[in-house]
């Protein structure tokens, strides 16, 4: 009965439609940035919600990723007698890949779903329509501040993740496994490059991931059917689409930035 039942062709068409609509939504968001500047306080409020409130999960995960990475590397590198290089390898892996990617995945799961669910429920309870009728532009007041907050928060959270991962690696490598402290830091500083590892690896990637995850989260919130089932599906779609987009984009960016 449903004219758009899930055949293979329709799924492809619907996916392309979603991507096209997402692109148009991005243009709408960018065009609304000047209008949303008057809602600066709302952007700060959202920055607190998606950024500061995500700090705990980012710090804890960063710490354990660093610790586990160091543990694994130590055991592998000890076979070749080069455990002193483990700090350096941890730093490169964290700055170039794990930091931005894991932070973005965690951000999508924690803040992205919250943004989608919040906007979806605002739609379901007519709050978005109420704003329209009070002559308040919901794109400028609701969507753009959340989008900008995600864009700003992601690089900052990635930096925190990386710092915690290095700290975790130091804790395991130097304090527990006995790698020399001086060797750990000197090898790391000798290899890590500001442009290729920090700017390209941490900042550019996290900015790109922040843009994609925030866009998907806000778009799914606005596009969701205003029902409880619709909100549930939308939050799931946010996590799935964000995860795929992050990993695919990571490959493309790595290929271009290396």
């Amino acid at each position, binding site marked *: 009965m449903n004219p758009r039942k899930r055949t293979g062709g329709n799924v492809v068409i619907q996916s392309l439609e979603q991507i096209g609509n997402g692109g148009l939504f991005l243009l709408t968001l960018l065009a609304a940035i000047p209008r949303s500047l008057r809602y600066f306080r709302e952007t700060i409020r959202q920055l607190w919600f998606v950024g500061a409130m995500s700090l705990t999960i980012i710090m804890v995960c960063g710490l354990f990723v660093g610790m586990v990475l160091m543990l694994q590397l130590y055991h592998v590198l000890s076979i070749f007698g080069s455990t002193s290089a483990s700090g350096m390898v941890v730093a490169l892996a964290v700055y170039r890949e794990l930091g931005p990617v894991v932070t973005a995945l965690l951000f999508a799961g924690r803040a992205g779903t919250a943004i989608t669910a919040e906007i979806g429920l605002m739609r379901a309870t*007519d709050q978005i*329509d*109420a704003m329209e*009728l*009070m*002559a*308040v532009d919901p794109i400028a*007041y609701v969507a753009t501040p959340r989008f900008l907050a995600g864009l700003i928060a992601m690089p900052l959270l990635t930096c925190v993740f990386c710092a915690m991962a290095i700290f975790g690696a130091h804790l395991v490598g130097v304090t527990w496994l006995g790698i020399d402290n001086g060797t750990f830091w000197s090898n790391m500083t000798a290899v890590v490059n500001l442009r290729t590892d920090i700017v390209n690896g941490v900042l550019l990637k996290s900015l790109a991931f922040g843009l994609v995850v925030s866009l998907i989260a806000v778009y799914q919130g606005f596009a969701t059917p205003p029902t409880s089932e619709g909100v549930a599906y939308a939050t799931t779609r946010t996590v799935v689409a964000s995860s795929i987009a992050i990993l695919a984009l990571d490959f493309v960016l790595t290929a271009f930035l290396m």
Partner: protein
Amino acid sequence: MAFADIFGYLQRFRMMPSSMTDPVHATTDDSTLVRVRGLTTVLNGKTIFDALDMDIPRGKVTAIMGPSGTGKTTLLKHITGQMRGDAGEILVNGENVATLSRERLFALREGIGYLFQNSALLTDYDVFENVAFPLRQHTKLPEVLIRNLVLMKLQAVGLRGAAGLMPSELSGGMARRVALARAIVFDPMLILYDEPFVGLDPVALNQVLKLIRTLNRTLGITSVLVAHEIEAIKQVADHVFLIANGKVVAQGDPKTIAADGSPWTRQFFGGEADGPVPFQYPAGDLGQALGFSGAVK
């Protein structure tokens, strides 16, 4: 300082909402505030409005009634410019809503209050901030003035004492009164009420009823109600439109229309299960649907 000076000062520093200063809201001599002409709307292949004509008088309480699914809420959405018809026009205070730019439409909306069926309060903000929200968005009034305006509106709906409560702490009737306070915070020329009595106990229903009447009498606000509660409508409405099949099938004052003997009014006001509004939703042959070869009535 003369009144005109104060007015000019407020205008100069954008301390007054455009609903009070914009020419869109300048009242005209026309006794009709909302004029609907030849409105035709087709949604998903179904004709919602079929060359609908309607004149909503200024300063009166007008009720729009009709069977479920006839497009009463859709009509309100057309009046506010949330939806546009396929043909025809809607003039609000002389302005053709469908042709207004987004800026002009927003300016027009500042002069229109809208009460949602589920109140649509902003759940992140408390009662005070919900009512203050339009003032904060559209004016640069000093905080003390915003506070006084909000408290006055809350006093008018009897909820000044609830200013610090969150929407989740309100009953359905209280939430609707808060939404009403928010809708009148700019002293609009027109208030649209979408099913304002649904789910209210008799006390809350009478409170909302009294507020609608009081706002109309004291401030002269034009009110348009979409509702099904016939007794409530008889008490509050000056004029009733009964719409069905995309057209106005009856109109007049509530008592006259209730006494009208047409099939539509007889079924609607008499609450008959079958009539011009059929009990059965249109469907194919039952026999075929059940797999029998012969037709079954």
